[in-house]
């Protein structure tokens, strides 16, 4: 297993590090929030990410992508996590690219991959319908109608749903689950932007008998569960990588504070009670890093056990990132409660990533079931 980065990966990591700290630091998220930006991310940034090959990191070379695999995508995501960078990377470059790659027909690949590579088209994947992630409980119906289908139902927590050009919609069909490609301006679609605690994009989407043709089926009718499996695994691992970046960074911020804040005539980092807290978190973060690398490697090798490994990584990162965020606020004292510091922004983003595509409780339960207890 590749738990160490090779030379290519190290180079990519370095260039992503430089890129995001320069082009999309935390300050950018603040600006987007404070100006109540309608898009919720910087479009010029996304264009540059496309140029850098980040948008096409999972797209096969024959369609113009750089096809560097999940480890590479994870490294990019980690750096975005460190900088709290808002972009359609997860929704478009990971979830949608993976869906297309694993199941789309040639025509769809020929149409959409180049658009993803150039950054001109963004996607959102609409899975969840209720307050908790529950991909096996989908009830949005796609009823056969003439040569096509009519979609009826609701989706929630659709990441980047209000800005995406195309939606990948998971729906129930007569014989199982099917994924449809639906353009944002389809008749009967109602998209409500929901501003979330982390100042990022999500949407609630209502489908009122939205008509789609057979050509809009991604892959084949009834293949939805397989598509979902592969999309969700990709998304969870990339989210875990983002959480690794966010929690490592917020822990670094905390450690810096422990080195400079003085009380009782001493630097607070001298108090052993706090040293142990920071050291414990360090240990947890090391485990978290291994879990993320293992999940990304498993995806690149697409072994049998991918779902399980990715689930465990998402569970682990859910709890470690939460710990990092909570410790950060507490150890900053009153300062940790202020918007002036970035700590709160990390806390809020981490809360959202905990919830997205299944929280720790969800993945722990799955893991237990998977192991037969």
């Amino acid at each position: 297993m590749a738990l160490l980065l090779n030379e290519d990966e190290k180079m990519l990591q370095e260039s992503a590090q430089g890129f995001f700290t320069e082009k999309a630091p935390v300050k950018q998220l603040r600006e987007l929030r404070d100006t109540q930006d309608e898009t919720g991310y910087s479009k010029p940034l996304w264009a540059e990410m496309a140029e850098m090959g980040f948008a096409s990191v999972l797209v096969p070379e024959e369609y113009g992508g750089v096809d560097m695999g999940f480890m590479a995508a994870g490294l990019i995501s980690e750096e975005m996590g460190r900088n709290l960078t808002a972009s359609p990377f997860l929704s478009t470059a990971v979830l949608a690219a993976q869906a297309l790659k694993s199941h789309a027909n040639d025509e769809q690949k020929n149409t959409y991959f180049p658009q993803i590579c150039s950054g001109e088209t963004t996607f959102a994947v609409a899975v969840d319908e209720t307050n908790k992630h529950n991909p096996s409980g989908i009830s949005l119906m796609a009823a056969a109608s003439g040569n096509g289908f009519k979609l009826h139902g609701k989706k929630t927590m659709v990441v980047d749903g209000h800005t995406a050009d195309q939606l990948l919609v998971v729906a129930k069909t007569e014989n199982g689950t099917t994924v449809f490609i639906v353009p944002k301006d389809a008749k009967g679609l109602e998209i409500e932007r929901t501003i979330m605690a982390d100042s990022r994009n999500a949407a609630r989407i209502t489908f009122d008998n939205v008509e789609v043709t057979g050509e809009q089926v991604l892959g084949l009718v009834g293949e939805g569960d397989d598509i979902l499996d592969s999309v969700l695994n990709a998304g969870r691992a990339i989210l875990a990588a983002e959480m690794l970046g966010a929690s490592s960074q917020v822990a670094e911020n905390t450690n810096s504070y422990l080195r400079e804040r003085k009380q009782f005539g001493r630097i607070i980092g001298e108090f052993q009670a706090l040293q142990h807290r920071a050291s414990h978190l360090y240990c947890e973060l090391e485990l978290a890093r291994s879990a993320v690398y293992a999940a990304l490697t498993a995806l690149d090798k697409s072994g049998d056990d991918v779902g399980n490994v990715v689930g465990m990584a998402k569970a682990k990162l859910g709890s470690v990132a939460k710990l990092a965020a909570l410790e950060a606020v507490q150890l900053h004292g009153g300062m940790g409660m202020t918007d002036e510091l970035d700590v709160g922004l990390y806390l809020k983003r981490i809360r959202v990533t905990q919830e997205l595509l299944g929280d720790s409780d969800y993945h722990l339960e799955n893991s237990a079931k998977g192991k037969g207890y």
Partner: protein
Amino acid sequence: MEEFRKETRAWLEENCPPKMREPLRNEKDACWGGRNWVFQSEDQKIWLERMAAKGWTAPSWPKEYGGGGLTRAEAKVLQQEMNAIGARSPLHSFGIWMLGPALLKFGSEEQRLRYLPEICRGEIRWCQGYSEPNAGSDLASLATKAEDKGDHFLVNGQKVWTSYADQADWIFCLVRTDNTGKKHHGISFVLFDMESDGVSTKPILLISGRSPFCETFFEDVKVPKENLVGELDKGWSIAKYLLTHEREMIGDYGEVKPLSQIIAENCYTPNPILRAKIAEFEVDAWAFAQTMSRMVMEAKAGASLGAKSSMLKYYGTELNKRRYELMMDLAGHDGLEWESERSNDGQLARSWLRTKGNSIEGGTSEIQLNIISKHILQLPGA
């Protein structure tokens, strides 16, 4: 006592407006009173007036100071009867929670008669000026200076995290009157009007997107000598007394809705792992409530809680944080919304963020644990 209960129940039934029996929907529903308070409704006003007339905004304070003169047991019955009909607290007040107890113990008769009745009637709103940028956990190192100028003190310096300073009428403030000795000596406890010349406030934006607290600046503020509470240079004992009092209170979140009820009302279906966490939490919350009751009984028997208040503060605030984490887990995607009407402007997420301050305000969890190590366990070197 049964007689008192019956009377109280009947009085509440007759006098508590139905709207004041509904849960608070947002911060504005809580009545803070004060010179500039704008009542959110006629009911809010009536409810405060009626309760104040009974002395029940501060039920256990002596009647001559505007309180209700109730025994601890009677005050408890009143609270139980209010809880039974879901009656809102008529008045939220740092005057009642913090300053009052200090004046009752350390104030002069003149000071008590001057300040306590207006506090009980909700006519004056107070803020607490303790923390400074360099004096947080190490409060005794505070540096805001008060110079003796004959008939008044001249106050210069800065406070921080002063909750509601921009809305308060008066401040109770710790100032340094002597810096030649040990840091605990030379601190004095003074009261002054926030409208005095030289006082200014600057709200601090919090992670919840709200600004309930401020930086507070003093530039040549004149404070009449009669506004000194207790002895000059001995204010630390008042501060400590108040902190102990505050800590007993912060840990006590009163009657909160059990998570089981929240689950039922929202038809949540927590998965087995979350269920186990919730069950564990509810056991801890129950054991904590029992501990609170036991401590009240101990205190009634004449014992002071002393350092045990740190145990209540530590455990109570950590529990409240856990409670909100679980509520966020239960609410899932819905709980993450920040601005919609549906989410009441992100009420849950913002409250969740606010609870993170519970283990910081009034002395951090780490400081409470230090106090327990030192004063209760008497560990070496602590």
